């Protein structure tokens, strides 16, 4: 639902059906809503059977990259004699994204159930839910839910009376965007600085504590109980009939200059135009949309025309110049200075760079400096070429893609809104002429 708004009739409420219901937060209320039925069932199945259903459902990672979840799980080899781990990525710090927060605030048991099933399916006895430190309410709710689940024998060494061991532990982060990157998260969980690791080895080979590890986003894991309860075919029905590659429902967080910000759950492939105008109420009174970033600040900026043409799925966004990313829709209207906002985004990345790679450490800082200079009215036409050159040096050359992410709004901004940059630079020229005369 467009929480805090009432659900819209065109939403497909699966994951967010119980947002806003106080009773759903506790174990009893959650059981009344069908909680832990899927886990009970899963624990009587073989891990391979669960992985197959998840594969068949077409579920893809909701953390940003969209990797098929069942395929990721199949890289794990239960019974190889090693301890396996599941990490649930609840670091949610991609600007524009606030969906995992609502999942944990309103339906903490849904996430515990998803984690428990995921852990069992990959042969892990322990799952860690890494929650960003700022999410104090989500942390409280998840800790309370864990306590209830252990007391009820749902988790522990005899999970749901099946004799199987499933532990889920909540781990609190301490403020660092980069810890959302999967290997940085693992380092952080191990008690280290949150520096991303060089891959390979990939987590499925050597991840947390050097052991085979799978990492999944909160929203990915909460979809799993629904898939087990209703079947892969049911899940696949959500989506565009002409695009079998994107299935299921997706939570989109909407923020910025729009009438009804909030979280909305729609089937993948939903028309973005209807989404922006019908569900979210369109632009603020008297204003016009200027630019849209549909998948968190790391994905390319769209023009309004591109956005209005996009089906909201992985392929639909790519076909229209951007990516689905985390589903954090950022709307910027004509009352804003777009270049200033791109500069602010660059500052975000400069602040969050872990500083291991030169291209990223220096590139994010230079990009910020040049953009802020342009915004301040001290830019030169050469600055735009310099920005693109730096962006090129920052793309595809570093340990993780934070560096690329900083280049993205700059490159897409310059491609699609070059006039905005030039206007700021020209403004200064006009200003300089009388100064020179004097």
């Amino acid at each position: 639902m467009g929480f805090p708004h009432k659900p819209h009739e065109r939403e497909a409420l699966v994951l967010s059906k119980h947002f806003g219901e106080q009773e759903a937060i506790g174990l009893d209320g959650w059981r009344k809503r069908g909680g832990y039925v899927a886990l009970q069932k899963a624990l009587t199945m073989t891990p391979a059977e669960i992985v197959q259903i998840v594969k068949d459902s077409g579920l893809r990672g909701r953390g940003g990259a969209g990797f098929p979840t069942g395929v990721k799980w199949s890289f794990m080899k239960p019974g190889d004699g090693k301890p396996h781990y599941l990490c649930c990525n609840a670091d949610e710090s991609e600007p524009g994204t606030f969906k995992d927060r609502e999942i944990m605030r309103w339906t903490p048991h849904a996430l515990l159930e998803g984690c428990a099933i995921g852990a069992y399916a990959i042969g892990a006895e322990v799952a860690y839910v890494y929650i960003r430190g700022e999410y104090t309410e989500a942390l409280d709710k998840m800790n309370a839910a864990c306590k209830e689940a252990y007391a009820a024998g749902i988790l522990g060494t005899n999970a749901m009376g099946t004799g199987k061991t499933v532990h889920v532990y909540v781990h609190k982060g301490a403020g660092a965007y980069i810890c959302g990157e999967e290997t940085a998260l693992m380092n952080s969980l191990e008690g280290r600085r949150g520096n991303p690791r060089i891959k390979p080895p990939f987590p499925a080979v050597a991840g947390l504590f050097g052991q085979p590890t799978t990492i999944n986003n909160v929203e990915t894991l909460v979809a799993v109980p629904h898939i087990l309860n209703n079947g892969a075919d049911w899940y696949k029905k959500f989506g565009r009939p002409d695009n079998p590659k994107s299935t299921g429902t997706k939570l989109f967080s909407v923020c910025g200059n729009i009438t009804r910000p909030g979280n909305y759950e729609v089937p993948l492939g939903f028309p973005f135009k209807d989404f922006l105008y019908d569900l979210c109420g369109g632009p603020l009174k008297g204003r016009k949309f200027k630019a849209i970033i549909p998948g968190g600040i790391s994905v390319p900026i769209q023009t309004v025309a591109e956005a209005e043409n996009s089906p909201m799925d992985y392929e639909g966004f790519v076909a229209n110049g951007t990516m689905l990313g985390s589903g954090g829709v950022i709307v910027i209207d004509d009352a804003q200075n777009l270049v200033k906002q791109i500069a602010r985004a660059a500052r975000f990345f400069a602040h969050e760079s872990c500083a291991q790679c030169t291209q990223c450490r220096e590139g994010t800082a230079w990009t910020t400096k040049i953009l802020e200079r342009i915004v301040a009215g001290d830019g030169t036409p050469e600055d735009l070429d310099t920005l693109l050159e730096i962006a090129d040096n920052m793309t595809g050359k570093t340990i993780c893609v934070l560096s690329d992410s900083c280049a993205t709004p700059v490159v897409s901004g310059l491609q699609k809104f070059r006039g905005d940059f030039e206007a700021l630079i020209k403004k200064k020229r006009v200003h300089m002429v009388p100064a020179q005369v004097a």
Partner: protein
Amino acid sequence: MSAHLSTEPHTPVFTGARRAELDELLTRYPTKMAALLPALWIVQEARGWVSTDAMAEVAELLDLTPAYVKGVVTFYTMYHQHPVAKHFIQVCTTSPCNVCGAEDVVKSLLKHTGCGELGVQSPDGKYQVIEVECLGACGFNTPLMVNEKFIESVTPETVPELLASLG
């Protein structure tokens, strides 16, 4: 003497219930080191910040060196290496909040707290305001945190009321 070198002798954090909490945490991980972030949180909850002495205490308990612990503490923005004001206010000004007027909220806060500048404590030691990056609440402009408490939908106009409610 700089603020982080407290003149008071360090009294151990991990005694009684807090020691028991740490012992329970250690059962969750295959290494002692993994309990480092949680242990630092216990310190900060107990003392309001993480002093050099507390880092040394944690290092000892987890078989780490004080320098290692310091290296980790400095990576994460949420651990305070200095005592902070009674109401430590963190306002998000990242682009999604920025387009919704977050900078005006910051200005209003700096004015009404008497802080004047970011990061500087107000003369009465009650307030301190800093800008932070995305708090993961971008649809609820403007979100901020006062210590461990999340407050949403703050506007420049509601700032005085908000400050009054903090006491």
